């Protein structure tokens, strides 16, 4: 008797059609439409800005901004404001504060970031404590929740994505130059400090609109991981940007759909998807080197 053939998985055409119709059928739910539109926007936005965040080694900064959002959201709820709008304002203020102190004092940036990080976390937790009862809504901001995406969130995500991505593409030359070699940029008359401020504000906007879907804890992963994966693969800057954007979009869509079917929080599902792509890209890079 010869060896038996290895077991194979065959996807029948009926199963495939079933999967596709399932994928389309979830679009019938308005909350899923909102989540997907906002998810695509922030997947793209986070990846594009993430390219510059990773090149400038600023991942700690993006994490700090995300945690600052907790205080913003809590204050928003306390004051009866839209929490995302409140987070936008609070994150921008914290970003400007960190930049100001880093530029103007001899404190190192990781010290400044560390102080703001823990300070706004502590403030956020205290303010949450002021509200009565169990705050399920606040908890959804920690890990993202597709059910919570409102029409206003979608509009904010689309508007800010257009603004931030538009500005980044329009002024890529300057942003790349400052990231590549700050001195060189300044000799050519670029006001690098002004660009630092602007970049921090753009990053704060990106983080705060991403909170509904990815959540505070993991938003910086959605910024860092697609760019890091793209860096494993890309040879040139255009490739880096293109691949990061594609990885961000794919992670967002696949993650959201998976989150719907498995009933898991959307943030971790999207980020795990991005991590899978990162691991694959890293293995691909190792293989190419051998």
């Amino acid at each position: 008797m010869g060896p038996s053939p290895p077991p194979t998985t065959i996807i029948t055409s009926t199963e495939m059609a079933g999967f596709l119709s399932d994928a389309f059928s979830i679009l019938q739910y308005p909350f899923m439409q909102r989540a997907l539109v906002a998810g695509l926007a922030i997947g793209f936005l986070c990846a594009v800005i993430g390219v510059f965040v990773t090149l400038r080694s600023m991942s700690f900064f993006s994490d700090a901004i995300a945690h600052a959002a907790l205080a913003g959201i809590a204050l928003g709820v306390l004051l009866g404001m839209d929490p995302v709008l409140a987070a936008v304002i609070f994150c921008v203020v914290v970003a400007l504060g960190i930049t100001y102190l880093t530029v103007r004092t001899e404190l190192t940036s990781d010290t400044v970031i560390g102080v703001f990080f823990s300070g706004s976390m502590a403030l956020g937790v205290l303010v949450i404590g002021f509200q009565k009862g169990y705050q399920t809504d606040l908890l959804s901001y920690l890990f993202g929740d597709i059910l919570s995406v409102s029409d206003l969130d979608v509009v904010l995500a689309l508007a800010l994505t257009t603004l931030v991505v538009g500005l980044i593409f329009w002024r890529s030359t300057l942003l790349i130059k400052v990231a590549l070699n700050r001195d060189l940029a300044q000799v050519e008359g670029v006001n690098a400090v002004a660009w630092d401020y602007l970049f921090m504000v753009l990053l704060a906007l990106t983080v705060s609109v991403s909170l509904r879907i990815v959540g505070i804890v993991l938003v910086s992963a959605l910024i860092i991981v697609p760019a890091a994966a793209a860096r494993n693969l890309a040879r040139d800057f255009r490739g880096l940007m293109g691949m990061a954007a594609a990885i961000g979009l794919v992670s967002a869509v696949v993650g959201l759909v998976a989150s719907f079917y498995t009933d898991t929080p959307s943030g971790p599902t999207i980020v795990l998807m991005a991590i899978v792509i990162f691991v694959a890209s890293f293995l691909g890079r190792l293989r190419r080197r051998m």
Partner: protein
Amino acid sequence: MSNELYPQSVLLVEDLSLRLGGYTLFEDISFVVDQGEIAIIIGPNGAGKTMLMRTILDLIPAHAGRVTIFGRDHHSLGDTSRRIGYMPQRLDFDRTFPITVYEVMLLRLRKSGFWLHRSRMRDRVREALARVHAERLIDRAIGRLSGGEFQRVLLAYALLDNPELLLLDEPAAGVDITGEDTFYELIHNLKHEENLTVIMVSHDLDVVFKYADQVLCLNRRLLCKGAPHAVLRPEILEQTYGALASSYHHHHEH
């Protein structure tokens, strides 16, 4: 000192001092570089050579003193900055930055529209690279360049826009000996062809004797300035570098 006294001067440095965090990096530095000169700043590690270069370019605020470039104060260069080409140290670049030589060169050629690649731009980049004999590197990622190749690309970048003044910070650091010679030869030729004024930092006394019109010995203070054969006396080198250097100098007097 004033600029009227030095009508030929491209760079005028007067009583320049730099202090950072209560620590003096250099003080009372004054010198003039005339048009068409090659001035080389020498000194041991930590002498403040790079800091001097960066202070001249207004990248770090000076504690005291004045710098005039092409007759303008260095705080308000405006369009004059286009007449300056700068080459930072190679080690200040993150070589894992995924960007090609062509893309790096585009950063200086275009203010916006990095993503719109036109064949005219490619031609300009190729021409610029040809000046340093590096046109074949155009599509290479910077991480895949050898030390010498990367230095050439940085030089080509500094030469875009046809500057009249070049500031080079250790332009041949990390390049192998034969490569080093060709590199300085290249700068020397460019200087003659394009009537450039060149200020560079170097470790290498051979280079100073061969190419410098003016040498500036820096060790916190300016210990000498002038033509290398006139000013590089053993006692000056000893002050600049410590005792070891004077024996090195004898070798050059033959």
